[in-house]
């Protein structure tokens, strides 16, 4: 092992592995450090991997990566206690090359992806915790690990240490996160025979479906649930902001069981066998929670930089793209021989010019708006359900009268002015 590397990447998730892969492909000496037994053993995701950002790293990856199903249908449910309003899109163009996104099981996918970085020349060391960055004269020059004599040096340290990013907190890049900046999410992988999945979700063998569930799935709290199809298992999960979980005094696993036994969900899981239970935090603070991402000798990528678009359930793609942008920056910095903050700020600039920060900026008020206005999940979802029920129940009432009744019941529950305010506020938060 050389005494000093060009780059040390902390964390072999999508962000870190992407960065390590690209740096190694350009001939840099890369050390990729993972605290788990293997890459993926500490990593959790609902399960959607987007093609576009992955393809930029490994062209036609779908021909060899361990993927579950290409998603050809995305459904959205506004769920009440005994009913659901549904919409969605199903398109066969998503089922053929180049695809749109795939369901994946991360423990398998991350191992495969890290192997690609190793094949490109990166050195992967598992079972090693990085306890701190070594800082000399205001510059990060290496890392200290929990191994004996575990100090390693590099020109640049890339922090891809996930949502908790203790390392960027140590460097003072961000303060401790607030409970409303993170979502606590729990999920189960449920084994179910392929034929049952295909029948229940109206799919062929190599077609997948995702369902995002709002409303009663979180008992009206700010959050969502999801149900995704793998080859011969389902991923079902639910999460709310940690602050909502605390306020409502919810046990996350009770909420998961509430979802699993909900009359709209239960038949889809019937006969399934739980195979794994997983909990994880999702950084959902958005634009305003993004920390400092570049310093002297250090950059921050992926969840560690809080790069998640909760509204569109995008995260792994942002992680990968940020890893790529960090790698490009490191390669250029190496060429210039300058790893100072002003040199590495190129990464920040690339990040802010990309879809990542542009999308986070678009929704910068969304979490805050929905957190402070619980009526969207608690009141409007049931109202929508009642309205649909009323409108489609044939009882001899003329349709115009039904429309009037529906409008009247909405405005009488919330008040006309409040309804207008609510619509304006929601539009502003997502426009």
């Amino acid at each position, binding site marked *: 092992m050389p005494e000093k590397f060009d780059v040390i990447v902390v964390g072999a998730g999508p962000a870190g592995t992407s960065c390590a892969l690209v740096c190694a492909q350009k001939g840099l000496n890369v050390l990729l450090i993972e605290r788990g037994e293997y890459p993926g053993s500490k990593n*959790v995701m609902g399960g959607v991997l987007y093609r576009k950002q992955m393809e930029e790293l490994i062209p036609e990856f779908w021909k060899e990566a361990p993927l579950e199903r290409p998603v050809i249908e995305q459904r959205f449910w506004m769920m009440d206690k005994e009913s659901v309003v549904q919409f969605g899109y199903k398109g066969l163009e998503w089922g053929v090359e180049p695809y749109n996104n795939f369901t994946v099981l991360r423990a398998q996918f991350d191992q495969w992806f890290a192997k690609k970085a190793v094949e490109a020349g990166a050195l992967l060391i598992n*079972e*090693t915790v990085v306890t701190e960055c070594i800082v000399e004269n205001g510059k990060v020059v290496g890392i200290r690990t929990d191994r004996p004599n575990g100090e390693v040096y590099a020109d640049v340290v890339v922090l891809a240490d996930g949502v*908790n990013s203790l390392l960027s907190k140590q460097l003072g890049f961000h303060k401790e996160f607030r409970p409303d900046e993170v979502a606590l999410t729990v999920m189960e992988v449920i084994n179910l025979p392929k034929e049952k999945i295909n029948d229940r979700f109206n799919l062929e063998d190599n077609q997948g479906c995702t369902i995002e569930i709002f409303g009663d799935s979180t008992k009206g709290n700010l959050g969502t649930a999801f149900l995704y199809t793998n080859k011969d298992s389902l991923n079902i999960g639910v999460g709310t902001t940690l602050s909502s979980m*605390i306020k409502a005094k919810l046990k996350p*696993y009770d909420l998961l069981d509430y979802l699993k036994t909900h009359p709209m969900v239960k038949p889809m899981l019937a006969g399934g066998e*739980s195979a794994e*239970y997983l*909990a994880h*935090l999702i950084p959902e603070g958005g634009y305003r929670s993004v920390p400092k991402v570049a310093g002297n000798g250090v950059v921050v990528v992926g969840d560690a930089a809080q790069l998640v678009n909760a509204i569109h359930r995008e995260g792994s793609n942002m992680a990968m793209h940020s890893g790529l942008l960090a790698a490009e920056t490191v390669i250029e910095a190496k060429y210039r021989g300058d790893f100072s903050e002003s040199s590495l700020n190129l990464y920040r600039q690339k990040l802010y010019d990309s879809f990542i920060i542009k999308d986070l900026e678009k929704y910068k008020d969304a979490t805050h708006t929905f957190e402070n206005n619980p009526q969207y999940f608690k009141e409007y979802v049931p109202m929508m359900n009642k309205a649909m029920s009323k409108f489609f129940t044939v009882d001899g009432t003329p349709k115009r009268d039904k429309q009037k009744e529906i409008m009247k019941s909405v405005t009488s529950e919330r008040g006309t002015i409040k309804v207008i305010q609510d619509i304006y506020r929601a539009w502003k938060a997502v426009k």
Partner: protein
Amino acid sequence: MSTKNIEEKQYLLRFKADTKSHLTVMDDDICATKCPDKICTIFCPAEVYKWEGLRMQVGYEGCHECGSCRIGCPYQNIKWEYPKGGHGIVFRLA
């Protein structure tokens, strides 16, 4: 399908427990006197924290290492580290 209570859910998992806890409640008195809800005993997804009347029992062996307790403790009373390299939870699927 049957739901599984939290003990049964935890049985689905593989843990490689360290001999030493990576989670430390720094001052049990704060839990006893200032924190009537003992909210960590409710929101922890692995039921790691159990109040025993005078002190908090910390079942770190079953921790998912999510970080919620560190962020959610109203008194920042939990010291939270990663388990030693290669230890702690080992997810096999998702």
